[in-house]
């Protein structure tokens, strides 16, 4: 073992290990920041979706309460007069459907019998109590409610309001159902999110007997779900696969690359008024900005670590060899010359040596002078 090699090697190794460790910790720290940013993005996505669904449900309920308070509606429901209701509200429904995304309007009689569907006037008199618990509850409790449900013509966001007869007795209910499609398209336009709505196929086939059959085609099947709406079908096909949405009981988050872009994906379970699972909404957002920033940060941290190791290794070498080992080498040569019977003459200047080395050089000079004196 030589000090010349082993001492710098040891010091440089320690420097390299320390700097590598610090770089690793620094990268973990930055990754934590990136994860926090992405977590914030996920929370924002969830908040946007929650707020939008809640507002839509309130909107549906507000419409239902307006109709429920109209004297003509109260009289017609109390009289179970379908023709009058149809004549009174058909045009209103046509306008709401065309312009405002209102998909369904229905009047019910207690406990949950369909009196009139404005969206499908030919179908009435059927009992909804098996798959519309919200209608049953409103008729029983006589208090307005809103929420998600799968109706005969498909899934929607419903607001159900009780209707009283002119004497103030409970006569039935009226509901407004808003289509998911315009809501999801609006979120895409406003926030740049990509969204898809998946509903349980079993429930759709059982309850949504009047749904557009094209929606239940094989190309929309994703595991046990049917894709009812998507803002970008090709992209969301890659981002939300059957394995991802098969067992979503709580909001789930993950990142996945699609079309060469990393996306953050949020899966939100949808439940009806009774807590029964209806389906899943997938929300995706481009995460390329945070991912690229994390990658660039890692590269620059590694580069800076390499710089630090090189600079500190240089300092170690210059100090050990320039201030210690090379002067020692010079003195060693001088002493070797003395030992071999020479005079150990000083050919190199030692005035720039460090103090300790200068003292040693002076000792060597004294020995050389003494040797010269003895020789003479």
């Amino acid at each position: 073992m030589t000090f010349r090699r082993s001492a710098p090697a040891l010091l440089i190794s320690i420097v390299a290990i320390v700097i590598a460790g610090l770089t690793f910790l620094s990268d973990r720290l930055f990754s934590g920041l990136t994860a926090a940013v992405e977590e914030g993005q996920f929370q924002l996505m969830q908040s946007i979706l929650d707020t939008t669904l809640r507002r839509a449900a309130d909107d549906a309920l507000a419409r239902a309460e307006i109709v429920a308070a109209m004297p003509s509606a109260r009289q017609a429901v109390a009289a179970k007069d379908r023709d009058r209701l149809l004549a009174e509200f058909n045009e209103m429904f046509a306008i709401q459907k065309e312009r405002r995304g209102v998909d369904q309007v229905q009047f019910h009689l207690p406990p949950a019998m369909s009196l009139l569907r404005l969206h499908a006037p030919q179908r009435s008199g059927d009992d909804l109590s098996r798959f519309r618990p919200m209608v049953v509850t409103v008729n029983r409790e006589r208090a307005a409610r809103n929420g998600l449900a799968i109706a005969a013509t498909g899934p929607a966001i419903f607001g159900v309001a009780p209707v009283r007869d002119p004497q103030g007795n409970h006569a039935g209910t009226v509901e407004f159902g808003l289509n998911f499609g315009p809501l999801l398209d609006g979120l895409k336009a406003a926030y740049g999110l990509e969204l898809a709505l998946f509903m349980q196929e079993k429930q759709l086939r059982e309850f949504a007997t009047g749904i557009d059959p094209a929606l239940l085609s094989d190309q929309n099947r994703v595991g046990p779900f049917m894709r009812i709406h998507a803002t970008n079908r090709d992209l969301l096909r890659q981002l939300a696969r059957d394995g991802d949405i098969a067992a979503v009981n709580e909001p789930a988050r993950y990142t996945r690359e699609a079309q060469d872009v990393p996306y953050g994906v949020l899966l939100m379970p949808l439940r009806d008024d009774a807590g029964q699972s209806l389906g899943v909404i997938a929300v995706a957002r481009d995460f390329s900005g945070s991912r690229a920033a994390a990658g660039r940060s890692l590269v620059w941290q590694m580069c800076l670590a390499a710089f630090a190791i090189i600079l500190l290794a240089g300092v170690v070498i210059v100090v050990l060899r320039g201030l210690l080992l090379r002067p020692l080498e010079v003195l060693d040569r001088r002493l070797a010359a003395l030992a071999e019977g020479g005079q150990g003459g000083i050919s190199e200047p030692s005035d720039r040596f460090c103090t300790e080395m200068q003292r040693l050089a002076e000792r060597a000079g004294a020995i050389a002078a003494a040797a010269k004196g003895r020789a003479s």
Partner: protein
Amino acid sequence: MKAAAFALALSAACAMAANAAADTSLPTGKGLPVVVHTAVSFIEIVSFNENAGTYKATVDLRLRWEDPRLRRPAGEANDPPKVYRGQPAQARTAEIWVPAVELANQRAKETYSALGLRIFPSGAVEMTRRVSAEFAAPFEVERFPFDRQKLRLEVAMRDEPAGAVRLAFDQSDLDFSRAGAGVALDGWSVGAVALRSDPIAGWYGASHSRVLAALDIARQPGPIVAAIFIPLFASLLIPLLAIWLNRIEDGRFTIETFELINLTVGGLFAVIALNFTVNAAYQPLSAGDNAVTRLFSINYGALGASLLINVLLSRFAVVERLAGRYVQEQLFYVLAWAVPAMSFALGAAVVLVAAI
């Protein structure tokens, strides 16, 4: 003379009758705003001029909206749509309301234009315009040559505020918006078309609807790496040679400084020439921060370091005077490997950052 006057009067009467029948006002029958579904398909990309920030292409712009005034009687509800092409389509569009959308980033008059119109019994109208023209495309150079660019088409509605006419898109428009099967561009891989709403600010707090259709293209970096990056890394060797060629014996430099300075100055001219050549070929690179300008900076920095090392250590022996001959000797040995190592590490980091 009489016949000519009669013909003139007849044509004037016909024109007045036609004007009376035509209703080109905004279709408010379904309320406002009138929603115009917008889709763009790229049929052909002729060229992409990175220096000018423009591309020449043929695109299909499809607009769909509903005009209840054009609904046909219930008995005709299942009839096929009325289809107009070319001149008849032009004539028909003069009689009905059509959204006055413009391709806001079109640079010059189109070299080709064709119009198709389909009017369905329900009052739904589908208008398709094929346009061959030059369009502006913002060019991002930060990740050059590993960059992806967006060939944009800005479909804007400036005549009416967004409250009156809104450009929108749905799944059908996304399906329509793609690059044609034969679309290719030398040196680039052609990707998908994305649609995005991006309103324009208007007067008095109003905004105007705009849809951006962007064809994603990814540069094939191989040829650029060979043509630019290899010379850049090779030129980095020049200042390093000016350090390596010096020799030190027992703390003394043995090569004359001016020979090494000559080498450094020669290297400076080589880098300047390379810089000039690259900037002439890829003009946008000189304007922004990107991997190429950073590599040039590393080259200039390495030349400066080489100059300083030779002048301060070899010519004026500054370190020897301050700390002794052997410290200078060891410092020189360290710099001989540290400067190249740092230069190439920095260069590699710059390339990696661009590639990520």
